[in-house]
């Protein structure tokens, strides 16, 4: 009798994984996350107000300062005032002079002013950004800008304006800046450090002066005077 060859198939014993405790942990974690989950998408936008200038020394006052103001007249009109820059470091002075000679009024020692108009507020912001980009290219390290807001603008519009002056939106294309070390970089940042101020000049005064191609000293000085008055008041009342 021949023995039958039996093929033994080696089989592993059936294994069990007890996932009960794992499920307990996951369920507890799930309920915890459900309780603490918050689906709001809040963020914040920074700005600053006028502060007292009581600490400044005479040397600091004599130091040349970059001065840029974006003055909103109303929803469809705004001004960009760019202060004297004769003693400031400029990336490309000739290019800046060429840019300022088109559309701006003024000179290097007294500053420049440009009126911007648009059919609606959003387009006004876009045109303001287009005007600020060359200034940013000329002063890549400067971050400060003053925004003068009239009472007619709503809070949402103020936020939109601040966002526009701070930088370009995600949908807009970046622009190239070159710093004083020669480093090129693409950026969307314009002037993120914004100081808010109030704008209360009569519309007729501003439009008349710009039409006559004169530097409207009065509105700008009024704005500056308002700022300094608020500063003194702030410093005096706060000190008391």
């Amino acid at each position, binding site marked *: 009798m021949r023995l039958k060859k039996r093929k033994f198939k080696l089989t592993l014993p059936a294994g069990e994984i007890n996932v009960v405790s794992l499920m307990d942990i*996951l369920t507890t974690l799930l309920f915890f*996350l459900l309780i603490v989950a*918050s689906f709001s*998408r*809040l963020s914040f936008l920074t700005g*600053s107000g006028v*502060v007292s200038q009581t600490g400044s020394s005479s040397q600091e006052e004599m130091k040349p300062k970059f001065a840029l103001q974006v003055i909103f007249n109303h929803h469809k009109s705004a001004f960009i005032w760019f202060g004297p820059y004769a003693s400031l470091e400029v990336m490309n002075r000739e290019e800046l002079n060429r840019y300022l000679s088109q559309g701006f009024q003024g000179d290097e020692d007294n500053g420049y002013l440009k009126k911007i108009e648009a059919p609606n507020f959003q387009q006004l912001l876009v045109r303001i950004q287009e005007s600020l980009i060359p200034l940013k290219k000329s002063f890549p390290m400067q971050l400060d800008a003053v925004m003068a807001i009239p*009472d007619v603008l709503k*809070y949402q519009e103020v*936020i939109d304006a601040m966002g526009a002056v701070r930088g370009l939106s995600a949908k807009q294309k970046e622009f190239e800046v070159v710093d004083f070390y020669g480093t090129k970089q693409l950026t969307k940042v314009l002037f993120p450090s914004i100081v808010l101020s109030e704008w209360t000049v009569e519309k007729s005064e501003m439009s008349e002066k710009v039409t006559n191609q004169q530097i409207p000293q009065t509105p700008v000085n009024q704005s500056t005077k308002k700022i300094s008055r608020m500063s003194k008041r702030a410093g005096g009342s706060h000190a008391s």
Partner: protein
Amino acid sequence: MLRKSHRHREPLEFSLNITSLMDVLTVLLFFLLKSFSVSATSHTAVQGIRLPASDVKGKFEETITVSLSSTEIRADGNVMVKLEGGRFRPIDLGADQRTLLPLYQYLQEQFNKKNQVFAESVSIAELPPGKILIQADKDLGFSHLKYLLHTAAVAGYSDYEFVVDNPEDN
């Protein structure tokens, strides 16, 4: 003769298949883990205020929260100033017709309390400005907001943080 056969009734077994339920819970769990962020502060929008929208994103810091609606101004949840007919009451305005006195007093107290530690070595007036978180309705005019900003600046809080809503990208 028939025998009574006693059938031994076996207890019924009832099984519930929860495989798909576990799948759903696991997916939900991973989704919540992904969107969960640990933050020391939490901010909720005040009722009656619709925040403006903006693309800017920033992390909150622990600071005083002031909310401005068409009817009142609150600081840290406490009503400071009430508006009547959309205007501030003359009794709440200071001599400069710009400072909101109840809010100014509250902010100044908070500023002094916060910087009491440094009061011995340096004058409070020389300290850096404090931060203030501002929530306001998006349809309010700047004519209302400027009072709040001025009062905060005068009280030592000239570093503003405007709370905005980040809408979803289209």
